[in-house]
């Protein structure tokens, strides 16, 4: 701006401020209110920026899952991810948020705040910011399952699952652990359960439902040879998978520190814990894969980063950075062993979702008790274990029942012909890569 405009503008601004000051001289009390308002505004900004980061994790999941599965199913994976967020948002708006954070007399589920009825235009909109932050967490839990059930699930049946998880399975468990963050108050948090950002509430819930889905579906055609040996079905685009992991890692900087829902200095140590756990997880997973397979393997190393992130999610607020490294290290080892374990059980999990989110979610929740900065306490660890077990029973149990019902009614799995043709063609009438010739790479 030219100098001859700047100077007059400054004078006008000063005059205006002086004129305003004459009518409202600040007092100590009004200063306090103003300061609190600035803090409140900062809380809103941080919470919503974090919500946007966590939203972007949907892109991360989409890319990881697409990259780790075959090209002929890419459209289907993307549709499931898109709908997990879209159907999930609507389900959580209508029913889920109320069940999770509504007023409760029992401590088992909420009974108010459905359809965002807590929001009254013109009044304090904190519920909107809080809802926005919570809905992206619900969508994260929902989309975890899409990876475990990839490449053989009927799309219409998956939509049913998506609605049920965001309206019933996720929010009710969530109310037990987090209801008190708003209008509710759950029985589990009442016992002192620690799960700051959701290793159990989000990741284990998603992981165990994914396990139920993979179990009910059965393995992909060709995954196991006649003598029970697991065969490789290589992902078609490892650059996409890696991009997805980096996006998730970035989004986790909203997931964990954002769970303060407040702009304060503590977010700095949550950031550091998050990063150290992810880094250690990927290094350890790489080392384990190197020792076991003879060469450092990319898909395991990528899973290792995610395992560290999932594991630090519960304890990110109450452990030291050094502990975060240990927690990430254990997760990195655990995830590789877990992937191989489930594969031996003939449970086909194309992207390792159950191992990354279910198993490492449980580990992270336990770690929040073991590495608690407030000191080791057996009763605290006991409550952590209780939460882990109850989550498994709830999520795997309800998930299994739901998928069995879907299987017996509308069907859960596509036919062998549809699976061989690829879901892009059979379920969606298209091809993700129309300009390219898609063909299988690995034989036996």
């Amino acid at each position, binding site marked *: 701006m030219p100098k001859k405009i700047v100077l007059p503008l400054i004078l006008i601004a000063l005059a205006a401020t002086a004129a305003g000051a004459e009518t409202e001289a600040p007092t100590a009390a009004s200063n306090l209110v103003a300061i609190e308002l600035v803090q409140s505004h900062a809380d809103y900004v941080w919470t919503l920026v974090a919500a946007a980061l966590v939203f972007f994790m949907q892109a991360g999941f989409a890319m990881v899952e697409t990259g780790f599965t075959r090209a002929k199913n890419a459209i289907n994976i993307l549709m499931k991810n898109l709908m997990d967020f879209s159907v999930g948002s609507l389900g959580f708006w209508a029913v889920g948020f109320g069940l999770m954070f509504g007023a409760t007399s029992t401590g088992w589920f909420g009974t108010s705040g459905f359809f965002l009825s807590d929001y009254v235009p013109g009044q304090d909109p904190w519920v909107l910011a809080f809802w926005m932050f919570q809905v992206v967490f619900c969508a994260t839990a929902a989309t975890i399952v899409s990876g475990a059930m990839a490449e053989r699930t009927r799309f219409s049946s998956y939509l049913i699952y998506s609605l049920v998880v965001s309206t019933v399975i996720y929010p009710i468990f969530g109310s037990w652990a987090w209801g008190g963050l708003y209008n509710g108050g759950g029985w589990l948090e009442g016992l002192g359960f620690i799960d700051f950002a959701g290793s159990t509430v989000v990741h284990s819930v998603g992981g165990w439902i994914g396990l139920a889905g993979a179990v009910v579906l059965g393995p992909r055609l060709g995954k196991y040879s006649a003598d029970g*040996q*697991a*065969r*490789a*079905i*290589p*992902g078609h685009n490892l650059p996409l998978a890696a991009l997805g992991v980096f996006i998730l890692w970035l989004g986790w900087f909203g997931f964990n520190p954002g769970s303060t829902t407040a702009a304060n200095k503590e977010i700095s140590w949550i950031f550091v814990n998050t990063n150290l756990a992810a880094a250690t997880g990927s290094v350890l997973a790489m080392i384990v894969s190197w020792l*076991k*397979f*003879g*060469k450092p*393997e990319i*898909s*395991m190393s990528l899973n290792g980063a995610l395992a560290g992130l999932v594991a630090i999610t519960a304890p990110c607020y109450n452990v030291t950075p050094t502990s975060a490294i240990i927690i990430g290290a254990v997760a990195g080892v655990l995830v590789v062993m877990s*992937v*191989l374990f489930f*594969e031996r059980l003939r449970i086909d999990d194309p992207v*390792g979702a159950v191992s990354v989110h279910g198993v490492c979610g449980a580990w992270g929740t336990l770690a929040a008790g073991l590495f608690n900065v407030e000191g080791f306490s057996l009763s605290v660890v006991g409550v952590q274990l209780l939460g882990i077990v109850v989550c498994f029973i709830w999520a795997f149990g309800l998930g299994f029942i739901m998928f069995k019902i879907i299987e017996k009614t509308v069907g859960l799995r596509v036919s062998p012909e549809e699976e061989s043709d690829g879901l892009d063609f059979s379920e969606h009438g298209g091809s993700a890569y129309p300009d390219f010739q898609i063909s299988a*790479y*690995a*034989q*036996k």
Partner: protein
Amino acid sequence: MKKIEAIVKPFRLEDVKDALANLSVTGMTVTEVKGFGRQKGHKEIYRGAEYVVDFLPKVKLEVVVDDEKVDQVVSTIGQAAKTGKIGDGKIFILPVEEAVRIRTGERGPEAL
């Protein structure tokens, strides 16, 4: 006229093309193919499961030339494509009944 079909290692393609240009062989068709002969495939590993990749990427070059040029073209391709290691490829010679230039309708060796 004869069609010369050469299956060569992909990274030799440019050298083969340049060598043929020096013989004034002005046209050719190239396809990306997979295959194996005596060169075995290799093993890869994905998430702990080993798998075999038998079909290796190759490039198939097709050139149609006058009968007099065949020997020279075949030995030029062979020299340019050779590395001395297993998997260098093969050259096949097939008879061509007729050739047509689409734009002008010319037939026979003038169409090449």
